[in-house]
């Protein structure tokens, strides 16, 4: 049984960590970009960002004044049991979000879409989002908590493409998205770009968002052909000639991650998401014995999450001819 107090306490620590400490993988990626940026203004912006991360850490203040929209990804082992059950878990995550919004402080961003009601704590109807996954390994009773504070207004798009659009169509929509996000830098590039391909409209958005927020800089899709496409898309995005804030430069994309899901046979859904200069994510694994391991890689997309089919006894008529 995993202690609910420990979950709430750890969730509070994660809120702070995400808001204050830039993950090392993104920082390394941004430093590499800063070293090779040639645009005068774009280069100035990247240097200022690097300084900003230092200051945030030194002062223990949020790196960006805009909290984005804090959300939670919860993953559990097959045998994990949470004290008080899933209802207690959700209450703990909501409470931690509210407490650290006031405590750190974070800007209260979440309001009612129509009445603009603001509880000044980033909690409301459907906020923070809490999403779930399960994992067969490692064995034992554990729960992974990941919080992501993604910038919330700009830098997301979706398009229904069709198989005949092909890779050329995918590239076109990718470039269209980046050029649109990038002007005046409203989506705060250079970013981790996540692309979702396939699924249904909602799952396509979810895949792309997770590709941006739950995979690290330098990670590659397990499918070698998709991994190649990731490299190519990164390169393509950085050839636009646009840098930070939409100034002339050569870094828009710190990395490009692609995730796919099986879709309707007639379609090829595509979504594009930019995880900004404040790529805020923090993760902890809590074990039933009270051990806590903090990290910044959510390690979400395992072979299990990308499983292709099911073990079953296919009827003989179903066997594919060679």
């Amino acid at each position, binding site marked *: 049984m995993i202690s609910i107090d420990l979950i709430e306490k750890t969730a509070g620590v994660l809120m702070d960590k995400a808001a204050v400490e830039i993950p090392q993988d993104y920082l390394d990626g941004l430093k590499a970009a800063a070293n090779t940026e040639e645009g005068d203004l774009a280069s100035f912006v990247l240097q200022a960002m690097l300084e900003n991360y230092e200051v*945030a850490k030194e002062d223990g203040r949020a790196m960006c004044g805009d909290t984005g929209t804090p959300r939670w990804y919860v993953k559990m082992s097959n045998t994990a049991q949470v004290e008080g059950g899933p209802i207690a878990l959700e209450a703990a995550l909501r409470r931690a979000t509210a407490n650290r919004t006031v405590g750190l402080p974070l800007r209260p961003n979440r309001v009612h879409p129509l009445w603009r009601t603001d509880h000044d704590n980033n909690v409301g109807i459907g906020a923070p989002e809490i999403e779930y996954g399960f994992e067969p390994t490692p064995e034992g009773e554990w729960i992974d908590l990941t919080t992501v504070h993604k910038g919330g207004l700009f830098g997301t798009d979706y398009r229904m493409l069709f198989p005949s659009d092909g890779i050329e169509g995918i590239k076109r929509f990718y470039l269209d998205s980046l050029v649109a996000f990038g002007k005046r830098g409203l989506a705060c590039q250079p970013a981790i770009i996540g692309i979702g391909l396939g699924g249904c409209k909602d799952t396509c958005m979810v895949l792309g968002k997770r590709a941006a927020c739950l995979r690290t800089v330098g990670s590659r899709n397990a499918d070698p052909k998709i991994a190649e496409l990731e490299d190519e898309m990164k390169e393509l995005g950085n050839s636009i*000639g646009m840098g930070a*804030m939409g100034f002339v430069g050569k870094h828009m994309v710190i990395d490009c991650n692609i995730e796919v899901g099986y879709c309707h046979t007639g379609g090829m859904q595509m979504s594009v998401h930019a995880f900004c200069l404040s790529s805020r994510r923090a993760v902890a694994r809590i074990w039933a014995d009270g051990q806590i391991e903090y990290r910044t890689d959510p390690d979400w997309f395992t072979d299990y999450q990308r499983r292709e089919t099911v073990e079953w006894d296919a009827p003989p008529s179903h066997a594919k001819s060679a």
Partner: protein
Amino acid sequence: MGRPAKPREISLSTTPTPDALAELQLGDIAYLDGLIYTAREGVYMRAIEQKAEIPLELPKQSATNFHCSPAASINEDGTFNMGAVTATASFRFAKWLSEWMDKSGAKIIIGKGGMTSELYKSIFVPHCAVYLSTVGYGTGALLGRGIKRVVDIHWEKEVGLAQAMWVIEAERMGPFIVASDLEGNCLFERENEKIAHGLDKIYEGTKPAVLKRFGETDDRKDEVIG
């Protein structure tokens, strides 16, 4: 391109002289000293549409309007806890700005993303005002450090913490980028134009989607995909 050149740095008062404003060039980096207040749609609507009396003496106390909701809370003893400050996108506030400048005498507008040269020429130039953009835009911690103290908050009950009028004392607060000058030139449009030259080449080897969307065609009789 080669090694990037360092942009010019300038110190600026939040109640600037006309000469100091005339000195600013697109792409200069500015650091601010003096009082700054935040005002966005909540404040604009209250001051302009509801004609509430502005609780500050403007522009004497400050001629600098920050489009920002800070990450801040009010402690139980009435003191303030301010962490990071990051600007919010300014284009949404265009419709109030001319009247706001008439009322407040604002000379410096700070925000995210700037405005169009058309707006600079029609609103900013007649009011002898310029636009400074925050950097990044995620430099919230750096800017937070430039706040010497939070002086006051107004209208938090009426418009909420995020929309309230925060008054802060800036000490070498920055960096900010000069995004418009007194002639109404726009830094972002200048950069867009430079980038536009290379775009055709980048798009080579891509092709438009089989089915269009509205926006790509404005003919509502066309068949499009949603």
